[in-house]
């Protein structure tokens, strides 16, 4: 194997062979990053710079004016922004928490318990990975109205809790927990609930973190429920309010407020991902569909 110089993957230090990769990737990275930097700058621009002609990309005198204008416009509309924030946090928290509980439970059953329909149930869930909620918005509306949940918080929460991707990823991760561990706990007299809580949950933390991120991403920006299932303004979510700001006026002052609104929707996602990215990569290593 005279010519073998390693597979080049995950090198421990820099060598000249990597330069060409950087040359190709840097323009792409700039293209991907540019809109994010732009919105960041835009959100902090004072009116004079928003109106500036020709428009400038970067911000010279950053100000929080757009953010305070955003809070004011909510107060003027009669509903303080804290109400939307509260709704969003409540809904997102419940969706993430309940989603993780039911997905880990189902994953435990599908991975470690032997029963007849196990394979079929897993196949159905795997097929549901390609479920596109936007396609069945109308039937979902009919079901929610049939259950009497229109204009309640349930309409925000219940449709989002069962996430096939989340169950799929957690189940693949539970597969990696050694059976011997579960047998041992079982012989020591632990009930399945006890095994779930004391053996499975602590060992699949990376998959749980990934599930939380996916649920958070989906829920934090979810508009369908506020747009279609909720009539009372004070029960709608921050995503909805931010979206109305973004669409309300295309005037230049409105742009600053809209940029600030977008930034507020984006930043929590980014922070959560940076914080949990190691766990996510760890989970993704088990993501294969066989």
């Amino acid at each position: 194997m005279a010519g073998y110089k390693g597979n080049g993957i995950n090198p421990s230090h820099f060598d000249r062979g990597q330069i060409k990769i950087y040359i190709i990737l840097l323009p792409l990275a700039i293209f991907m990053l540019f809109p994010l930097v732009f919105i960041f700058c835009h959100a902090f621009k004072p009116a004079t710079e928003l109106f500036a002609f020709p428009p400038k990309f970067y911000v010279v005198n950053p100000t929080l004016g757009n953010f305070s204008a955003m809070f004011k416009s909510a107060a003027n509309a009669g509903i303080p922004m804290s109400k939307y924030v509260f709704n969003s946090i409540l809904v997102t928290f419940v969706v993430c928490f309940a989603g993780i509980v039911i997905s880990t439970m189902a994953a435990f059953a599908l991975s470690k318990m032997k029963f007849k329909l196990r394979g079929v149930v897993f196949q159905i869930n795997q097929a549901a990975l390609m479920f596109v909620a936007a396609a069945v918005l109308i039937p979902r509306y009919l079901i929610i109205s049939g259950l009497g949940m229109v204009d309640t918080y349930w309409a925000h929460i219940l449709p989002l809790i069962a996430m096939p991707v989340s169950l799929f990823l957690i189940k693949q991760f539970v597969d990696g927990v050694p059976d011997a561990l579960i047998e041992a706990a079982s012989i020591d007299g632990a009930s399945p609930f006890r095994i779930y809580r004391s053996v499975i949950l602590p060992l699949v933390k990376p998959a749980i973190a990934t599930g939380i991120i996916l649920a958070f991403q989906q829920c934090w920006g979810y508009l369908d429920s506020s747009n279609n299932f909720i009539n009372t303004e004070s029960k709608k979510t921050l995503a909805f309010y931010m979206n109305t700001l973004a669409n309300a006026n295309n005037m230049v002052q409105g742009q600053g407020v809209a940029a600030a609104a977008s930034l507020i929707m984006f930043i929590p996602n980014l922070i959560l991902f940076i914080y949990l990215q190691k766990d996510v990569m760890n989970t993704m290593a088990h993501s294969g569909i066989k």
Partner: protein
Amino acid sequence: MKTGKKYPFLFLLPYGALFVVFIILPIIVAIGLSFTDFNTIQFPNFVGFTNYINIATQDSIFMQYVLPNTVTYALIVGPGGYCLAFLLAWAIAQLTRIPRTILALIFYSPSLTAGTAMAVLWKIIFSGDESGYLNAVLINLGVINEPIAWLSTAAYILPIMIIVGLWSSMGVGFLAILAGIMNSDEELYEAGAIDGIKNRFQQMIYITIPTMKSQMLFAAVMAIVNTFNNGTIGVQLTGTNPTPGYAGQLIVNHIDDYGFLRYEMGYAAALSVVLLLIIALFSKIANKLFAEKE
């Protein structure tokens, strides 16, 4: 673990109940309604395949704009975004840890907000007057003399949607591919070198892709779903449904148009079923390409 019948049922029940009510049942209802003339007011009548026949023969907007737009958008953003995700993941896997993590974050972060919140950003960049950023840059460079109304000119809407779609397409699938490459088995590459694999490109084709087919399939499914979930981007960018000249109209918008604007729910349901079938077809192709043969 042997548990008897009670425990698997108990553990699956909460997920299963919500899964059936909010995922399976809506699909069944959509299929059921697609054979009726439901309009939200009168009791629905059974009309057989009329809605489907109308889609194929009467709905000239669907055939002329919506279907071609959807196919163009889906083929470029789906497979295109997928190939891009693979190539980017493969490239950054060859870098040292810290630059790799930073670049992965840069490529992944646009997908975090999945279109909606970012529509405003693209609106500002593509704004139609001379204070629009793209117009200002192009006028400065002398490429154009008059500002272009990007988002209300039919010819530009679909290309802009595709750019935005590609920009936000490095999602979960990208991370799965990256993880797959990072965890590939070093010994296989050594064996490959003995068998005469000379360069990184051959490594990619003969070793990397075959050994991580299952991750490639997962990423493909995610790419397809992402593409169709972002299907409302045209309406968000232009702010109107239908989009100007139907230029950015995708099936999802057409469903909303009939369902929530005209209340022709039966017809909208038939369109939903058509969309689900298109998605299933895409997944079938992905399965053919990447499923591990027994």
